[in-house]
């Protein structure tokens, strides 16, 4: 296109582009202004003309400024016109999410959950067996902050000292620290699985191995019951939550790395509803687990007998599994 033609091309269309831009500015403003039917149809019409202008300009000129302006205008129009309808969040929607969606997704993805649970159990078996064979392995397997030279001495110290959590406020503060940290850990388990698949599995095996190693070292020191009473009430929710995060990572990783016949984008878009349902549920379970870990779990046998704590742990685990895997799915309605 010759310069004069280019200037004529621009001059004859400039007003339309300016009008499209001003409509887009209103449409993109926050909170979203009500464009109205007439202005919306005008915007659509001008957007389509701008698309045609861009195609035409690309064919005839390399003028960077013109192409960039048209590319930006059509890009903004495209993003506005083809955007997904934003959905509001209501209390009823949250209720439906936990009542129907969470169990449905976990039942649908039970193979991923089973694979993640198997990884954790394999790790736990390895760690447990290793420490049973040679207690010295505990020092290598257990992270420093959880390692105790003599579990029995630690238990004796806890059982003979005043309760660590003296008030509800202290429990709340401790719980908040715990669940924020645990949610971060679950996000890490998810991310490793989502990006590498194998990384998520290895992370679960590693977590299982040191948990198994701790359990074995407490059993060897003949304070096994204390261990299960101490970690059971919150562990009943926390360990499954870590497994669920790992499973969500496997679902996302499968879509990302093994999309099959779908494009990677399509496979991911299909996987996200399940992935984000599992992760939100995981975060909710970890908040509950944190609340229990910061309060009830910390109580020694002076206040709550071991049997009661282990009983609470078993009931919580049973309720969680029943909620996720045995709860009836929403009946299909509308279509025969």
């Amino acid at each position, binding site marked *: 296109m010759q310069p004069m033609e280019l200037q004529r091309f*621009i001059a004859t269309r400039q007003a339309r582009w300016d009008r499209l831009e001003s409509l887009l500015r209103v449409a993109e403003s926050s909170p979203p202004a009500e464009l109205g039917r007439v202005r919306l149809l005008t915007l659509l019409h001008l957007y389509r003309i701008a698309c045609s202008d861009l195609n035409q300009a690309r064919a005839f000129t390399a003028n960077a400024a013109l192409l960039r302006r048209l590319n930006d*205008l059509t890009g903004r129009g495209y993003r506005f016109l*083809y955007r997904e309808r934003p959905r509001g969040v209501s209390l009823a929607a949250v209720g439906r999410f936990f009542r129907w969606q969470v169990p449905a997704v976990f039942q649908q993805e039970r193979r991923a959950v089973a694979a993640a649970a198997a990884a954790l159990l394999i790790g736990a078996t390895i760690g447990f067996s290793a420490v049973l064979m040679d207690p010295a392995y505990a020092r290598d397997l257990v992270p420093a902050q959880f390692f105790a030279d003599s579990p029995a001495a630690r238990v004796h110290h806890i059982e003979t000292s005043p309760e660590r959590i003296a008030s509800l*406020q*202290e429990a709340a503060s401790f719980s908040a620290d715990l669940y924020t940290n645990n949610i971060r850990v679950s*996000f890490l388990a*998810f991310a490793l699985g989502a990006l590498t698949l194998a990384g998520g599995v290895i992370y679960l095996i590693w977590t299982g191995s040191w948990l198994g190693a701790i359990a074995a070292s407490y059993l060897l020191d003949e304070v096994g019951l204390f261990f299960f009473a101490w970690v059971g009430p919150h562990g009943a929710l926390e360990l499954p939550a870590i497994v669920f995060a790992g499973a969500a990572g496997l679902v996302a990783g499968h879509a990302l790395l093994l999309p099959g016949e779908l494009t990677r984008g399509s496979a991911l878009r299909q996987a996200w509803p399940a992935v*984000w349902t599992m992760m939100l549920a995981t975060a909710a379970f970890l908040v509950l687990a944190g609340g229990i870990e910061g309060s009830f779990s910390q109580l020694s046998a002076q206040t709550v007998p071991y049997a009661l704590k282990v009983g609470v742990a078993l009931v919580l685990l049973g309720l969680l599994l029943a909620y996720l895997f045995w709860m009836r799915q929403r009946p299909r309605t509308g279509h025969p």
Partner: protein
Amino acid sequence: MSGVAHDAGGLGGWSGEADGGGRATILTPELTPLQLVPAGPGSRFLALIIDTALILGVSAVLETLLLATTPLGLAAALGATFGFALSWAYPIWFEVTRQGQTPGKKLLGLRVVDARGLGVGLSQSFVRNIVRTLDFVPLFYGLGLAVALGDRQGRRLGDLAADTLVIEDGQAADPVRALAAGRQLRSLESPELRRRVARRISLEERELLIALTVRLPRLDAQARFDLLEEVGGYYRVRLGIDDPHLSGEQVVRGLTALLVGLPRQPAEDRP
């Protein structure tokens, strides 16, 4: 420019291939290829610092208010919960409700888009942001930065997992002013040379010279020098430019500026 890919969803998706600048191209339902220009790590990092500062600032104010109004233990619990929720909810809320722009990104003209060039949805933004945990290690986005530097489109791990891209949300330039600015480059202007250029440079050559000038910034230094010396040398002979102090690049840029500013010549003037 990369090829154009269709997506099963009906809207365009970007292709795996990208050009030297990492640009991706999507095809709108109107069959118009749209170019997405990936943002560089520098501007993204700056946007991140602005967003982090905002989150820390709001958290600090909240915590101060809580400490002043509630007992210590409860204030700590609420402060930790609010701070945590804010740090995760902030990017997700802004990305979903503000068409992919957090305040930091908006300030720097950046936007998160999905593979179709559209704003990100809730589940996608959620995935993109929780993978941030991994991008963040070992120290303030160390891994994320390393991955982004190695990726042609500057994507961090969160972008890879969520199939998103941070693009430059270019402020539309005024094409008329840009045309006028081009004329300031005329260093070769003389009536004789103008005549020769008008008569001897064909339309195809003109488009070639303009395209070459527009793409110069994307060439590496050595290739740019070699190419322009060759092209400049050719036109030096062809147009009889005998100024020995002009480099190949000056010749090419000067010619392009002259061509952009030339009025269309009547057909009979052409050889």
